[in-house]
């Protein structure tokens, strides 16, 4: 047994030494790490995020890389949001692959690796997790996904626009769901509204009938669903079957939700990162076409965010090379970002990173049509005039 353990330790040491410093020294490849949920109940996210990121890597490399330096994507699995797995993955990325920039996802692992990023000067960009608690966790942590605050304010402003007053809400018991719930509890009363029901469901709940029955009898003007894939699909399907007729508003509607809910999703309005390949956005159309060609399905905004995240990092590396920095670390990439915080967005137009590290992007308002397809209605402001 001692021999086995000794050999195992030696094997890891050898592999670590063989893979790490040697390639880093070559300087021909800039490696980008990705901490994604590749396994477990949330593997859907990891799959689409990694696909989006890899398409960006392939595109940049096909165009000759960044001044000849190719990009490489190295994925680590945080098992659907496990902090320890996130820390382990981050350590591998840093110590074996000498990574200086990481695409991260989910709030718990992002919060767990933030101190490491700070200490090791690792640039991180999050395009998936949207808990507001991530703001300020590390000076090198940025978000190219609008956070919970923006989506929630946006959809509640839409509710106000409709003239609704009484809100019934249902939220999922995850970091994201809880964060949205907290913001809604603070913001809706500020808008003069009342909360007449507040139900919660576990993530991945197959049965939320009890909660939906309570929502139906609450007398609300509308239902705000702070839930995500696949629960959003389940909610839309069952709420329709329960005969709920008041409008349903939410903050996520993925292809999986569409498959699950079908026509029962009709009328659902939601705010989200606006990824819709319109005619006036050829970059988005190209990404959309490539994704569909490769995987035979439409990319959602998670795929788009990670696609875009790679381009943000690539732009920063290009700026570093221009500044004569051959192997930039996270601190240098961050400094370069703050010098010019505006980046081209695959969603159309530009996105600007704010002081809190969050990219101010256009938040889209969508409505699900009778055929279960979503339809872009308009951009919606996430701030209250005068505040």
């Amino acid at each position, binding site marked *: 047994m001692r021999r086995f353990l000794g050999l195992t330790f030696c094997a*890891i040491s050898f592999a*670590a030494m063989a893979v790490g410093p040697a390639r880093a020294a070559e300087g021909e490849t800039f490696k980008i790490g990705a901490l994604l949920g590749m396994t477990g109940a949330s593997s859907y996210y990891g799959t689409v995020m990694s696909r989006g990121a890899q398409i960006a890597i392939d595109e940049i490399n096909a165009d000759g890389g960044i001044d000849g330096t190719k990009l490489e*994507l190295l994925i680590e699995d945080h098992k659907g949001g496990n*902090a320890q797995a996130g820390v382990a993955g981050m350590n591998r990325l840093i*110590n074996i692959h000498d990574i200086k920039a990481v695409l991260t996802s989910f709030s718990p692992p992002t*919060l767990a690796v933030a101190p490491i990023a700070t200490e090791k000067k690792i640039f991180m960009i999050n395009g998936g997790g949207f808990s507001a608690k991530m703001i300020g966790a590390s000076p090198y942590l940025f978000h190219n996904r609008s956070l919970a605050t923006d989506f929630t304010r946006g959809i509640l402003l839409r509710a106000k626009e409709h003239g609704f007053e009484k809100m019934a809400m249902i939220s999922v018991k995850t970091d994201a*769901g809880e964060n949205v719930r907290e913001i809604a509890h603070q913001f809706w009363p500020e808008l003069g509204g009342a909360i007449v029901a507040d139900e919660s469901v576990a993530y991945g709940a197959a049965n939320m009938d009890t909660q939906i029955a309570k929502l139906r009898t609450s007398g609300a003007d509308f239902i705000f669903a702070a839930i995500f894939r696949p629960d959003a699909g389940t909610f839309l399907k069952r709420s329709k079957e329960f005969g709920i007729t008041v409008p349903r508003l939410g903050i996520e509607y993925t292809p999986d939700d569409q498959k699950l809910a079908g026509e029962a999703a009709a009328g659902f309005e939601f705010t989200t990162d606006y990824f819709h390949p319109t005619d006036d956005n050829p970059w988005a159309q190209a990404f959309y076409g490539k994704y569909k060609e490769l995987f035979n399905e439409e990319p959602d905004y998670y795929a788009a965010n990670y696609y875009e995240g790679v381009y943000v990092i690539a732009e920063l590396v290009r700026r570093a090379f221009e500044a004569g920095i051959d192997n930039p670390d996270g601190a240098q990439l961050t400094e370069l970002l703050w010098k010019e915080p505006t980046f081209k967005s695959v969603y159309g137009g530009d996105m600007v990173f704010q002081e809190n590290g969050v990219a101010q992007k256009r938040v889209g308002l969508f409505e699900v049509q009778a055929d279960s397809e979503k339809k872009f209605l308009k951009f919606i402001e996430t701030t209250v005039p005068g505040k």
Partner: protein
Amino acid sequence: MEYLVHIAVMACLYVILATSFNLLIGFAGLFALSHAAFYAFGAYTTAILSTQAGVPFPIPLLLGVVLTAGVGAIVALPALRIGGHYLVIVTLALQVIVLQVLINGGEFTGGPDGIAGIEKISLFGWRLSSPHTFLPMAIFGAVVCTAIAWRIARSPFGRALKAMRENEAAAQAIGKNIVLMKVIVFAFSAGLAAVAGSLLARYISYVGVDSFSIEETIYILAMVILGGTGNLWGSVVGAIILVLLPELLKFLALPPDIADKMRQVIYGLILIGILLVRPQGILGEHSTAPALARRARKDAHADEEIGTVNGTEPGEVTVSARGLAKSFGGIVAVRNFDIDLRAGTITGLIGPNGAGKTTAFNMLTGFLQPNAGTIELRGRSLVGLKPHQIVREGVARSFQDLKLFTKMTVIENVLVALPDQSGDSITSVFFRPGTVRREEEENFNRAVEILEFVNLADKAHELAENLSYAEEKLLVIARLLATGAEVLLFDEPLSGLDPATLEEIFPIVRRLARSGKTICIIEHNLDVIRGLCDVAVYLDEGHALATGTPDELVSDPELARRYFG
């Protein structure tokens, strides 16, 4: 290389978790699936005290250990009444409840977001902020916790835990307080897990519910099973392997979007492969006795006669029961039962199946409380006492189905039954180690003598499960003798034995009686009763119909008709 150091830190934390879990599952036989909840208690206590009250190291760790040990002791309460699958369900429920409380704890627990920004440990101005600086702390924690678990496991208390794991009734029948033992082992197991939780919180500066799910409990359980239950070194090995293996698999080149799923499949297949080759785990369970054998001095009790009861007059009544009654619902098992057991006398209890003989034994030894009647040992009432208290008073029993501790060696079966062991007290285990060690050596010699008395000394280091049927019967006698009780109640000790073996055992029982022991035997074989017993009591329909010499009862035509039909 920091990555390797990080793996080493995680291995240390899982060593703590696996060894503490093994105490509960491998040694005590309490299949409680809430270890990750205890782990979480330690982590969250440190996180909350550190971030919300600014309490410095090591106070949150110590409070976490105390709090979690308390919770563990409370969890032990349902385990007193239930076991097996029911305990699994109850502890799973605890695991779920703890997670739900943490998720719904709002700002206090951080809810689903968890708690970030936990202050790193600072010692003498040295901040343990990197894997390199934290590793010595992790190693120290693992060594201390493993040493505590090892001390428990290798002590007489640990031996008693194994006896309880093997058979709770038999453990009670040799004087072990299984209620106290369960509470203590739950508390220690939980408290040690809390150490790992506290260290994790300090190491990664973050705690979240995802780290303490039921999957985490199963992961730790896999370490225990892989290494071998009932062996702490096995848990160390299991923890190291299960921490290292996924890291090794990371070096397998696989397509990126399915790589981690494939690695999990391979990981599972490797574990299945190992357990197919070593179903008992990589390291099997081992006995504590060989180490004792090396230290023991053969002359410790050389001139003390086995089984001698001092200050007893032959024929003196030791146990007297009057008017005993027991019914189960509408079924009357025993009614108005009187019996006197005398020192130096072998009393036979005979009667047809269902006559109430074993029920009478169960009442005399506290396994059942009588509905009516009195039981006295030399004038002291035994009614209301627990089985282990009655053994300590001086009345011990064997079981019809033997209830040997089959996964323990022969000498361990005897050692564990010896009375008044300092090592049965957890405080003595830690605070009077010298006394415990000296007693252990003496007890080993005593156990050897008892085994020599029943002619089993040459089998001392065999597992009890490997004995022949006749040897098992002898071990039952030896274990009963080891309790030091002056009244020995044997439930069919000689059934199923051939005449030659009976001739070997008869002298042993007679010698015990001559030494002053009070002996009562339930037996169906009338030849045994006639050959061995001085007095016989005929029991039928829960009532003593006749008392006399065996020959008198056997020659009574009415009793013969009732017995043989």
